[in-house]
């Protein structure tokens, strides 16, 4: 520590960080309570569901959501990197080709250690694709601009949607609990400006006509939102993974695979155990889905909250945390798929006794 303070560069960096922290603290939502708040903006309206990019559904009630767009961006990024890396394959690899080769060789090694050399080649493409897609989506979601810039949805539309949703769920709509933001100007693209911590209005206040003249109330529908913060994405991945696992199980063991779940050979206990196995297979889809969705959604909320409380530097350690979580979740999803595939293709030892 003493050596760190003796180094003038480190000392300058540390001082700058401290100053930024103080500015952030004073300018954020915390400082707003004491007359600061010049940097902060109100807490983003956190939506569990993915939001449509267009106000009206495009074709037959189907609308493109921001998470679909992000998934496509992730796909485009991966395709571009793959194309650039493998465009001119050479025996002595360049940097990008070397990186891709190292990643693929490493993951092929993992697949071989889990599933054995023969099956590894079979499972590898799905295993690798799940990892790359989840990782890219998670890491893209950390970039600035995600969840903060979007189209403006007027208050009337927003309240209307909420009323419909509450009615569909059989709940009472509470206008006092529904918060919206207050914006200036008429731009179709909206974002939360500096020093707007107090620019919040509830639906109740809006309907009473408390909105100031020349301003408009509404919410931001972000253009970009991390793909895995929409439960549809992890669910789609989990379904594909489990369908493939059972397809591999069936093609490797035939009816023996079905016999794991409909076991008539060992009497009622066998049948019961088989049914339990079946239930656990189904629960895997759910655990797959909610593990990934929960981690990434929570990470997103954490980043929003920290940016709200301490702008500028409050976010920084949690960005590192989110990088780590994003990687770990991608790895876990891919690894579990691989392990389930490996176990599904091995027949139960008891069948042969």
């Amino acid at each position, binding site marked *: 520590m003493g050596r760190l303070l003796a180094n003038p560069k480190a000392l300058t960096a540390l001082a700058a960080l401290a100053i930024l922290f103080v500015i952030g603290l004073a300018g954020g939502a915390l400082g707003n309570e004491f007359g600061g708040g010049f940097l902060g903006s109100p807490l983003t309206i956190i939506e*569990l*569901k*993915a939001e449509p990019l267009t106000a009206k559904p495009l074709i037959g009630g*189907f609308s493109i*959501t921001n*998470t*679909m767009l992000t*998934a*496509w961006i*992730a*796909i485009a990024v*991966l*395709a571009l990197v*793959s*194309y650039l*890396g*493998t465009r001119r*394959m050479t*025996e002595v*690899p360049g940097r990008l*080709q070397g990186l*891709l*080769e190292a990643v*693929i*060789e490493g993951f*092929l090694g993992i697949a071989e250690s889990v599933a054995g050399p023969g099956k590894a*080649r079979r499972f*590898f*493409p*799905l295993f*690798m*694709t799940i990892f*790359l*897609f989840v990782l890219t989506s998670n890491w893209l979601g950390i970039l600035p601009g995600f969840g903060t810039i979007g189209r403006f949805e007027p208050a009337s539309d927003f309240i209307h949607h909420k009323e419909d*949703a509450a009615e*569909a*769920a059989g709940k009472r709509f509470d206008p006092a609990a529904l918060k919206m933001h207050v914006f200036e100007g008429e731009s179709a693209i909206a974002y939360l400006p500096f020093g707007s911590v107090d620019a919040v209005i509830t639906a109740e206040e809006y309907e009473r006509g408390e909105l100031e003249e020349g301003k408009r109330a509404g919410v931001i529908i972000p253009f970009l939102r991390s*793909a895995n913060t*929409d*439960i*549809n*994405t992890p*669910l*789609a*991945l989990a*379904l*594909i993974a489990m369908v493939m696992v059972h397809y591999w199980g069936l093609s490797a063991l035939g009816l023996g695979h079905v016999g794991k779940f409909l076991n008539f050979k060992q009497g009622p206990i066998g049948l019961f155990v088989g049914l339990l196995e079946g239930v656990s297979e189904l629960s895997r889809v759910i655990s797959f889905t909610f593990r990934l969705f929960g981690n990434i959604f929570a990470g997103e909320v954490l980043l929003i909250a920290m940016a709200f409380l301490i702008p500028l530097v409050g976010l920084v350690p949690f960005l590192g945390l989110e990088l780590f979580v994003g990687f770990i979740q991608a790895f876990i999803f891919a690894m579990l798929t691989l392990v389930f595939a490996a176990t599904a293709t091995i027949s139960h030892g008891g069948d042969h006794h």
Partner: protein
Amino acid sequence: MEALGITIPGVFSQVVSFLILFGVLYALLYKPVLRMLDRRSAKIREGLEAAENARREAAESRADMERQLDDARAEGQAMIAQAREVADRFREEELAKAKTEIDAQRERAEADIQRERDAAIQDLRQEFAGLAISAAEKVARRSMDEEAHRELIEEFLREAPGSGNGRR
């Protein structure tokens, strides 16, 4: 389901997106990279095998060379031994030949000496006979003529013991 935002189009869209990504990555990434990795590992294996072969061949040729060297050495030794033997025999032969020659020469010389001596003894005897005659002439000058005398002495000498081959 609805509260969480699970929608059929949402799931369907993401499934399709994922399958597209799967296809794209399979064609653009996994296939070329795995092919390259396989090719490289095959090449390395070939290289290692070639090196192993070269090493074995080198060892073999080295053993071969050593064997040839040993053969050559042994052959050289044998040749030297043979040459020495030939030289020895030649020397013995020459020595024996020289010895016999020397012996022959000596024998010839001895024979010569013997002959000379015999001749000398013969001469001496004749001389001695002459002297004896002249001595006897002086003693009995008038009693006998010289011719009768000589015959008498010749007869005497022939009958005398130790005459003939000149050796005692």
